[in-house]
């Protein structure tokens, strides 16, 4: 997945942004500069537009999400130390930095992160910021989040207006309990005379399938 991020990014970065990011990654990799000072500057240096990658896992990603993922992938830590660094960046980050951390979890999963970043996923799912809710339900959540919390997260997406196409692994992980929850939600909306979004109906109807 890191290769996909890197490829999509090189198509979108301008020369100044690419140079800055390469230098920043080197500094982080060699332990010459703390990530805390570089992380907030990513949007200003690299840009914030849509990443525009055709890769399904990168649906909804922005350029700064991808650049932050590259920076995090350069951190020469693993296990508890890596988890500690990630948590500090998330806790002290603005909404864009937090989203960047959440996006990167799928890539960092391979570096022995295990389920140590789950508290960040839960924190993001408690917010009402659609950018954070969407980013929290990526491949990392598919692998590590327990079923009840994952279902609640998906239902929350429907409530707050995150397109369900952005939810990773929905087709594979949706179960009859999720379909029941969505069917109840659809009934509730119909009873109130409100329209039922098409993506909600699709999940609700999985039960019969």
């Amino acid at each position, binding site marked *: 997945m890191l290769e996909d991020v890197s490829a999509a990014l090189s198509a979108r970065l301008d020369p100044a942004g690419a140079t800055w990011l390469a230098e920043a990654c080197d500094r982080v990799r060699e332990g010459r500069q703390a990530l805390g000072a570089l992380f*907030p500057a990513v949007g200003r240096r690299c840009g914030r537009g849509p990443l525009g990658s055709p890769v399904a896992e990168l649906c*909804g990603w922005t350029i700064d999400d991808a650049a932050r993922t590259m920076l995090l992938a350069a951190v020469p830590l693993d296990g508890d130390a890596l988890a500690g660094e990630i948590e500090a960046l998330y806790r002290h980050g*603005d*909404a864009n930095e937090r989203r960047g951390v959440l996006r990167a979890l799928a890539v960092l999963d391979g570096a022995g992160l295990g389920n140590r970043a789950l508290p960040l996923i839960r924190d993001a799912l408690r*917010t*009402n*910021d*659609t950018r954070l809710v969407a980013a929290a339900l990526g491949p990392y959540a598919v692998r590590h989040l327990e079923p009840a919390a994952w279902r609640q997260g998906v239902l929350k997406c429907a*409530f707050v*207006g995150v397109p369900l196409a952005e939810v990773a692994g929905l087709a594979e992980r949706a179960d009859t309990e999720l379909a029941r929850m969505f069917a109840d939600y659809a009934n509730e909306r119909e009873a109130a005379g409100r329209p039922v979004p098409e993506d909600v109906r699709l999940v609700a109807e999985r039960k019969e399938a």
Partner: protein
Amino acid sequence: MRIFDPHIHMTSRTTDDYEAMHAAGVRALVEPAFWLGQPRTSVGTFVDYFDGLIGWEPFRASQFGIRHHCAIALNPKEANDERCVPVLEVLPRYLAKDGVVAVGEVGYDAMTPEEDRAFAAQVELAIEHELPVLVHTPHRDKAVGVRRSLDLVKESGIVPERVLVDHLNEVTVGLVAETGCWMGFSIYPETKMDEQRMVAILREFGLDRMIVNSAADWGRSDPLKTRKTADAMLAAGYSADDVDRVLWRNPTEFYGQSGRLLLEDLEPAEPSALYAGNSILRGARK
């Protein structure tokens, strides 16, 4: 008509306000950090407040097609509480953030030695982080407060072009005009300034370095006072270009010195933050 409100506390306002502001032409704003009415008792509550100013509130504003920026500081009133002063140590973390376009509101409330120290320390931080400064001037003993603020600014070595002295009126505008600092006016329903008096000041002092805000907050205030001042300018014979200068170009020039003002078209916002199908509007309105 496009309007930039350079000083408004949206944390205290409703979504109705956001809608009305957008309809009136407000497309961007700056929310300075200030007192919340109820005194804070710890650094932690400042951190939560600052996180809101760079997190939830910009998101909320984006739902209504308005770009939200903020200024971060320990305000003068709470600079007098020793439980709050250590917040100065966490400020550098926030002054590095994208949406932070100034240090503010700093300045004086009761003009105590504690306020002197916090004010001076934060102007230093602004120089270090290459940010402009928003200076609040006191309600009580205002002229003395303005003079003392200008003295502190001069001593600090910050260039006057990077300083906005706010809440001015007929008595204090002249003191600031001669310094090269920017002049801010808060248009209020009762206190501070009103639209007609603002137009009279513009007639006397010209449009250069003049900035008009609503400073709307949790008190009796009106988030549409920027638009009402624009209308009063037009009624008084000013051109649409003059209005654009005072209500848009002047504030964007001042805060633009941060290099962090984001004014590209933001409708629609990012793909997952849909205007019509979002966390605030859906369910709550239909």
